[in-house]
């Protein structure tokens, strides 16, 4: 059953501009997969297609099939809301709900899903904050505003918020690009830890980061998936000339 994400002929548009071209890829379960490529190549669009966040932008549409453990995310009649509960997302800029406390931030997704039981909420919030390696830092200030944390803590709060609903996949769009090196290291450590429980797909423009955390890496260029392979292979013996140019810093 857990056979990961299979993407079949995925294309995406903003209005009439085509930003993804016939992407085929198999993303393995219980692995970290990195998406790299120059900016504007469609990395964000690609992962936003996986949990149907792409279509919330006016004029944006996608075409193709995305099988999450065998089920087509784009099957007619599929509610994007249920897909987004199964595939969580963390954004580039930490975006906690500033009017909510730390606790309420993490509980937000569960409350949206209709969980009202206080004990269950407490348990889930503690577990998610633990998974996000934030529990020890905030356990005495769960009532504080989510916006009062440091940038790195805010991002881990957002990770906890996404984890609380128990997703099968966590998508991360350059989750540490707004953070300092120490906060970045914490997030990377966390990703390696999370891998035990769920799939992680991380977009990064930092190739060292991809090399450090990812088992498999895909390289995008101009909306095309140029190469997808084991991370080590991508960085040591890329098959495509364009991948080689990119990782050796000849462009991008």
């Amino acid at each position: 059953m857990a056979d990961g994400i299979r993407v079949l002929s995925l294309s995406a548009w903003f209005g009439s501009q085509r930003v993804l071209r016939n992407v085929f890829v198999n993303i393995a379960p219980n692995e970290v997969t990195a998406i790299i490529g120059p900016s504007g190549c469609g990395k964000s669009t690609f992962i936003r297609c996986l949990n149907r966040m792409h279509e919330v932008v006016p004029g944006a549409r996608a075409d193709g099939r995305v099988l999450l453990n065998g089920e087509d995310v784009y099957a007619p009649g599929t509610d994007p809301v249920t897909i987004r509960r199964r595939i969580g997302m963390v954004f580039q800029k930490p975006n906690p709900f500033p009017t909510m406390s730390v606790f309420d931030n993490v509980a937000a997704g569960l409350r949206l899903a209709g969980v009202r039981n206080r004990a269950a909420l407490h348990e889930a919030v503690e577990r998610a904050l633990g998974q996000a390696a934030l529990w020890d830092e905030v356990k005495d200030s769960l009532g504080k505003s989510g916006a009062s944390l440091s940038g790195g803590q805010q991002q881990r709060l957002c990770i906890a918020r996404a984890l609380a609903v128990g997703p099968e996949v966590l998508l991360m769009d350059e989750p540490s690009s707004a953070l300092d090196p120490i906060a970045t290291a914490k997030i990377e450590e966390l990703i390696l830890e999370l891998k035990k429980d769920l799939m992680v797909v991380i977009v990064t423009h930092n190739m060292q980061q991809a090399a450090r955390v990812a088992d498999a890496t895909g390289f995008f260029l101009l909306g095309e998936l140029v190469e997808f392979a084991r991370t080590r292979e991508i960085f040591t013996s890329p098959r495509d000339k364009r991948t080689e140019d990119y990782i050796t810093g000849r462009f991008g």
Partner: protein
Amino acid sequence: MERLAPAGAGAAPSRLLPGAASASARSAVSGDRLFRALLRAVGLGFVLVMLAMIAALAIAAWPAIRQFGWGFVVESNWDPVQESFGALPFIYGTLLSSILALLIAVPLGLGAAIYLAELAPAWIRPPVGFLIELLAAVPSVVYGLWGIFVLAPLLRSWVQPFLGATLGWLPLFQGPPYGVGMLAAGIILAIMVVPFIATVSRDVLLAVPSQQREAALALGATGWETTRVAVLRYGRSGLIGAILLGLGRALGETMAVTMVIGNRPEIAASLFAPGYTMASVIANEFTEATSDLYLAALIEVALLLLVITVVVNALARLLVWSVGGPVKTVRE
């Protein structure tokens, strides 16, 4: 800064003042200072004008203040012949008609704002927004005439009989249907206040960063849940500000209310009954106030109205401003 400018030879000043050429850095700094002093003077000037106004009103109202003391605000007789003045009916009328207006205008205004900011297709937004703003530009005497010739007859022959028949067990909806009265005033005020609430709220909602909406959507929120959890909550202090702005306007509105409220200084439980507001009594009776005490009493009403509206507006401004900065997204 004085020491840095010559030593840094261009680099330091331009770092301090992005976009300013090094040669003009010094004059830009002093221009900045001048500008700030000017703004401070203007700001202080407004405060002084306001204080002077309150003081002038207080002095002119002094005979009434001395004569009636607190009785002026808690008593409800208003008898120019006997020269005995209690302003409670006007205070009551002003507050009740404004609250009534808000009860009607807040759902309408917020609904319109949510529609315009969150739901409406992009091409609908400018024309509808423009129409709503246009409503704010209609002179209030026109609203008043409309109230007399359209709204009051409508209330008299349809709405009030219906309310009396269905909700007549409430004291609020008892008594003869006159048409003109507190209900008509509340409705007219609501119509006049909706554009303010709707446009300010719309701008508050549009200022909510899209990352907040995406955060909620990515958690599996539906469209309405996203509006509720991410958008309305984020903008709530701005929305309260918008409502208080509307309230400030309702409190001070004179012409249209005077034309439809019935102008009788009584405190009645029924919304069908005529009432009177502070602004209306000043407008109606100022020219007939022959004695000094009568005049002073009217001026004291003005003073009370000013104080109430200043407090409400100050609250509104504070809340609208605070919405600009409650959020620290990334703190490093």
